[in-house]
């Protein structure tokens, strides 16, 4: 269970408030207008920012001051998900063995993950020669080898076209069936296709999780305005 407990975060004029829980294996879409606090919420969960009040708990354990890399959380960013100077295999292996010389076992695991995302044979290539879709697959392969139960995705496939984006989301669902995933998206269609819960974030307020059918069936107020 991922629990966001009485979370408060203020920077200058902006204030974020969140208080919700997600059962293990939930895929939550975080939607809402720009500047509402979606990415800030992910930053707080990931540990890049620390809350002024409240706690982030995984399975009842407070993640407190844990550094981002020590949390049971993997992150797919909007961009810069791949180190451009390292080959694809090393990029992926770093997910399992973040050392100066990644362990041989991690390299082997990375090969398997690359095969799972359809990038077998691309191990020695640099990211620059890969297409956007292939780079996204490589980043997903790295998520696989990290084997962390929570995955945060901040519009990770925004640069891809609609068809490729749908394909990637299907791949995420297929390869990470047990992960608890929170994904920021601007596309309601992505949320409908992917999510089992929806969180609406507007002006720093995070709604309680709602099933997508209910959420999209009866939109009211700010939600209706946003969806229109």
């Amino acid at each position: 269970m991922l629990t966001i407990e009485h979370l408060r975060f203020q920077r200058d004029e902006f204030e974020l408030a969140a208080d919700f829980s997600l059962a293990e294996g939930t895929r939550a879409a975080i939607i809402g207008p720009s500047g509402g606090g979606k990415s800030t919420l992910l930053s707080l969960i990931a540990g890049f920012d620390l809350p002024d009040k409240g706690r982030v708990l995984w399975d009842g354990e407070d993640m407190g001051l844990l550094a981002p890399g020590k949390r049971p959380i993997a992150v797919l960013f909007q961009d810069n998900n791949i180190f451009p100077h390292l080959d694809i295999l090393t990029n992926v292996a770093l997910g399992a063995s973040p050392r100066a010389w990644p362990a041989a076992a991690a390299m082997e695991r990375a090969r398997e993950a690359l095969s799972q995302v359809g990038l077998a044979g691309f191990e020695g290539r640099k990211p620059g020669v890969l297409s956007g879709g292939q780079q996204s697959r490589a980043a997903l392969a790295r998520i696989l080898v990290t084997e962390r139960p929570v995955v945060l995705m901040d519009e990770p496939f925004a640069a891809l076209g609609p068809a490729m984006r749908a394909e990637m989301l299907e791949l995420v669902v297929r390869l990470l069936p047990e992960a608890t995933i929170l994904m920021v998206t601007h596309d309601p269609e992505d949320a409908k296709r992917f999510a089992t819960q929806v969180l609406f974030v507007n002006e720093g307020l995070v709604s309680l999780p709602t099933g997508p059918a209910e959420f999209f069936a009866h939109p009211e107020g700010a939600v209706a305005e946003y969806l229109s």
Partner: protein
Amino acid sequence: MAGRAQPLSASTWLGIAAAAAIPLLILTTSAAVVLKAEAGRGFSAADWAAIQFTIWQAALSAGISVALAIPVARALARRRFPGRGVLITLLGAPFLLPVIVAIFGLVAMFGRNGILNGLLTGLGFEPISIYGAHGVVLAHVFFNLPLATRLSLQGWQAIPGERMRLAATLGMGPAAVARHLELPMLARVVPGALLIIFVICTTSFAVALTLGGGPRATTVELAIYQALRFEFDLSRAAYLSVIQLGIAAVAAFIALKFATTPGFGPGLDRAQRRWDAQGLWHRVFDFAVIGIAALFLLLPVASVLLDGLPRILQLPEPVWIATLRSLLVALASTVLVVVATIAIATAATSVGPRSRYIEGAGLLAIAASPLVLGTGLFIILFPVIDPSRLALPITALVNAVVTLPFALRVMIPAMQTFEADFGRLSDSLNIRGWARLRLLVLPRLRRPLGFAAGIAAALSMGDLGVIALFADPETATLPLQIFRLMGAYRMDDASGAAALLLIVSFALFWVFDRGIGRDADD
């Protein structure tokens, strides 16, 4: 990154320690000279003369450099011609040019047996001497004309192209463009350029050492050197060091407050589209200005190479030993700079808003006079050990300290870019410490790191400062060896050694810049 409260990592602490070491060294050496200086000693006539000459020559050098640079920069801004980019790149070369090499070239051009005196005596005039106040100013103009030109050129490039187009549609001629666009720009750029060059000229010991001297051309730094080396009057050296500290601090404070950043800015080879000044005489004037400036800057260096290259293989053994010593000093200094730069840049990008204190501490050395640092270290070491025994390590250390600000100006922005692009990804993957350095930071930052290392190596190789204070006859570096050869009128050997120093300095820069920075990914 807002709101982080994680404990600082070991590498961040290392960077903080490295940054703190700079003000600590400056404060310790300053304290040593202040404590050694006799309070109430008062200025002697020679001290006053040194202070007055230091300020006078720096002001005159800055004024002449900027006055000459303005037409050169304007000509470069409004003309396109083959080799323009190369010429502008070469304007950055004097920064790395060993002072003693440039002095040797200037002596070859303007000295008693130089080309200018050959022309003058051929026309029946008396020959002129390069030694003395005018020689010091000439050398300073040689070194700072390129800097002033680059600073002014940045000003021209900053004028938006739309303004030039508007001026063209209004039919504005060169005078109107100068009045309405160029003069307002110069009013912003010139004070900064004057101040920066003034500061540089107050701390250019090697120029005063080689071309100055005597009651009318002794700077404060040269007086410190004479007090230590010839009079062995530690108290007077300390007293003069306090004065030098004051001059440098006031000048640096004013420069930092009002000066614009010179930068190594790209894009200077971009010619501005101009519709005015297209007449024949304007073109002739511009190309004449560019040609004269290029000859003034290139001929001394070319003469060093042409005269010295054939003599290199005949150089005596002590010159080669001195070369080896200089290489060791340069490499040690470069290692220090690289390690300190990476540590400080890492720390400066890890501590959020407090980073400016770390960066500021590292940059503090820009206002430090190497001679004062050296004098302080001399005073501290003298009761304990013969300072000449530590001549080479101290030269490497001081060279590293004074080069550090240049390296930091290159590396900190690069590190900030890296952290902005990949910091969170690295954090989320828990790639830290040695792994982060080996796999991510060093490969991504190879190009700026190679450039910074190249600058450190070349500047240290050509340095003629602290070594002059500390060295005994057995421990000369190559620049000091050249100075001694010139003093002994062994000009053939000095010429070969100057060519050798020039080649080695630029080769070091090239090796580090290309060797480390080669094939770097963008």
